[in-house]
């Protein structure tokens, strides 16, 4: 579930962009940490995110859930240290109270590729210093108390069991499993894998992955560039240098298959797709523009028109590309009353097939561009959205002018580009299908 939520975030964040006025400053610290900063004094707040190559694809074999637990337990306790600073230990409660006392908000989480922590704080000196200093320690000195690990494992397992009763979670796990075979993207935490995770696993994962030389620090808010530099140094001063991470296996598109899973819900949940697109690859813009017409453009997409508006078969029907560090999925899906499953699936397949054959019409291409370009300002109109965008630019090494050139890249997509990109990435006879709730 986490992965899917994160996936959406990535999709939207990644396609975000900037008006000419958005100036991203970027530099690299001596310890290798990368900084991306947007100076903005319109509100007295500061947003920070620090991310690492510490997503669930880095889970040790057989121990799925390590990345997630490590991240979730960063603030369960801090150990006492002497270097580089003498600092005393803090309990979970003390950390939470200290953050609340300066009215800061701590966030973060674990996705397939990246994991990290974020902070929203008042930019006034006292509050900012207190919260940034705490975040620095949370990233570097988690104590992973044994007894709290047992507690959090029990909670995680309860949540996993709950997920195993929910058609959307069942479907999503089966979908990633079918698409990614033996690749780490196919793995998800199970009761057995979480049970096997020890405190040593968390300590090792943390030491290997939460390292200065792979930190990506994104900041926006009411501080100067000098402040930002000092904060970036502070955030990484306690972090070690990490050895290079092992290369991950390549993603191979598996033979297509269909999995039907029985479930008592009134609706069937249908997912179909295949591994498709890497962050920053040239096909991304034609795919983005084309998918607007196919299933991305909310109430006006072909899938919505055919499945919902014309036939009343579903409340939600969609398709999207989820670009990741390695080929992330193209996914289409819907929920429909069980008895209508085959009818709905047929409509979805024929809508996709027609689009692959013919691409968008000139009118549809224009509508897609009008919306994407005309709506560009909405992608960067507050600090939170800008933070998400620059964090993705930093982590995935997208060009710094990514947001500045975004509308031009959309503008220049042609019908032929869309057709060619879709034909390269999406073929009906290579797609796998998961249906939860309508077993045959």
């Amino acid at each position, binding site marked *: 579930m986490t992965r899917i939520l994160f996936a959406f975030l990535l999709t939207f964040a990644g396609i975000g962009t900037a008006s000419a006025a958005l100036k991203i400053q970027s530099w690299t610290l001596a310890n290798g940490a990368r900084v991306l900063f947007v100076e903005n004094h319109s509100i007295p707040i500061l947003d920070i995110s620090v991310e690492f190559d510490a997503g669930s694809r880095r889970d040790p074999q057989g121990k799925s859930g390590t990345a997630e637990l490590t991240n979730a337990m960063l603030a369960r306790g801090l150990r006492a240290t002497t270097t580089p600073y003498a600092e005393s230990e803090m309990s979970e409660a003390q950390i939470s109270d200290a953050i609340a006392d300066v009215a800061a908000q701590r966030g973060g989480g674990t996705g397939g590729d990246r994991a990290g922590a974020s902070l929203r704080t008042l930019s006034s000196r006292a509050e900012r210093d207190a919260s940034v200093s705490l975040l620095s320690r949370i990233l570097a000195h988690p104590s992973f108390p044994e007894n709290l690990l047992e507690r959090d494992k029990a909670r995680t397992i309860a949540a996993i069991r709950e997920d195993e009763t929910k058609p959307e979670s069942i479907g999503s796990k089966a979908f990633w499993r079918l698409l990614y075979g033996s690749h780490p993207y196919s793995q998800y935490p199970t009761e057995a894998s979480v049970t096997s995770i020890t405190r040593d696993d968390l300590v090792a994962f943390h030491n290997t992955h939460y390292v200065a030389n792979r930190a990506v620090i994104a900041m926006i808010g009411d501080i100067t560039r000098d402040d930002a530099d000092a904060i970036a140094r502070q955030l990484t001063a306690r972090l070690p240098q990490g050895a290079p991470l092992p290369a991950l296996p390549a993603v191979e598109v598996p033979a297509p298959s269909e999995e039907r899973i029985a479930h*008592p819900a009134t609706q069937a949940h249908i997912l179909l797709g295949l591994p498709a697109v890497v962050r920053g690859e040239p096909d991304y813009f034609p795919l983005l523009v084309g998918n607007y017409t196919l299933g991305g453009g909310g*109430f006006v997409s072909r899938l919505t028109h055919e499945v919902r508006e014309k*036939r*009343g078969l579903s409340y939600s029907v969609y398709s999207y590309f989820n670009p990741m560090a390695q080929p992330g999925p193209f996914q289409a899906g819907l*929920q429909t009353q069980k008895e209508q499953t085959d009818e709905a699936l047929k409509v979805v397949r024929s809508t996709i097939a027609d689009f692959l054959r013919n691409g968008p019409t000139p009118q549809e291409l224009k509508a897609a561009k009008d919306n994407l370009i005309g709506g560009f*300002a909405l992608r960067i109109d507050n600090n939170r959205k800008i933070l998400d965008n620059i964090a993705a630019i930093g982590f995935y090494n997208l060009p710094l002018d990514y947001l500045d050139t975004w509308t031009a890249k959309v503008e220049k997509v042609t019908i032929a580009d869309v057709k060619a990109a879709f034909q390269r990435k999406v073929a009906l006879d290579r797609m796998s299908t998961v249906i939860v709730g309508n077993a045959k």
Partner: protein
Amino acid sequence: MKFRIALLLSAWMLGFLPSASHAELAQEFMLKNGMKIIVKEDHRAPTVAHMVWYKAGSMDEHNGVTGVAHALEHMMFKGTKTLKPGEFSQRVAALGGRENAFTSKDYTGYFQQIEKSKLEKVMALEADRMANLVLDKEEFSREIRVVMEERRWRTEDQPIPLVYEALNATAFMAHPYHHPIAGWMSDLLSMTVQDAKTWYERWYAPNNAVMVVTGDVEAKQVFALAEKHFGKIPRKAVPVTRPQEEPPQRGIRRVTVKAPAENPYVVLAFKVPALRDVEKDDESHALDVLAAILDGYDNARLNAKLVRTDRVANSAGAGYSNIARGPVLFLLDGTPAAGTTTEQLEKLLRAEVERIANEGISEQELKRVKTQLIAGQIYKRDSIFGQAMEIGTMEMSGISHTKIDRIIEKLKEVTAAQVQAVAKKYFGDDALTVATLVPLPLSEKKAPAAPKGLRH
């Protein structure tokens, strides 16, 4: 993905504390036909949130046609005298806009987010469907099936929403909060296009609507545009929904829901005062602070004690939203950890309130909660959409948006003694409803038969 939102902002889902801003003050203007226009300028980015709110939600429905407020919300995208079905959304999309709509117990709202130069165009579209909606029988027969799919997706197949549906139907016997926003399935099955038409004609009038615009605009210009596009829509006689006051509860009520799930769940709902008069309703402000003491930050009492320290719950929370047209509930809820029953968790949740009733709260806790309140006023300025939602929600409940800052001031004045007093006063048995989820294994639930008579 975009959804028309049916359940957003039901009482217990709203953030616990409304907060105010020290930025530009919102300005207000009344058209001659009774439509109120509220504008809050915010020039940080060249975008605008444009919303039209109607004071008509599921609480204004009658028996047999529950869900019609929400069904009409869907039909508002299905064409006017000059626009074909779906054309509204196509036009907004062509302008680069994002749009959606939401229905709650108290109101129905429509919004677009757009680049600022497009404001007049979406305003013209919104004005058109206020006056010129065409309700076609064929379109309705398809859309009501979409609405039923939405109900299946949000409620029928979701254990926790089923629990809340049962909770409301049990806590409220006379008041229309008894009924779910989405409507009962049987009412959806028998609903006709005429029901939607009647609803539209009854409630969709300028004098029953409030426009809220936030973002990079000049208030005067917005007022002029509103006058131009909405000014000529005639006022209507809008009916008054009867009070349907909930009689005093005379004893604890319990309801059980069995549904496929893994973990049990329990929610306790106490009938408590709503906020009607910002200056006088100090108990409501104190309840608001009480909710924050219990669940307003990571290490607030319920999580600290029940989840983190005693480990009797996997989650525990409190919620109180005092901004509503109707009666409100103070909620305590949680998922027990292995080894704890829902009966035990129910007692443990109440014990935390009793502890406050007996021992009070510390000045440090109170200060912490107030610190968050003040910061919240600043953080919220990052979202023009959120600010427009806040203004609209206040207005619909009958409290002027001009009171937003005043509420914060009143919350800052709440004392530890006041918090202790409300904890003592309102958490007895007599006005309590407890709803419990009993998990069923997946294999035992029989899927209900398909509804009859839907195909055409």
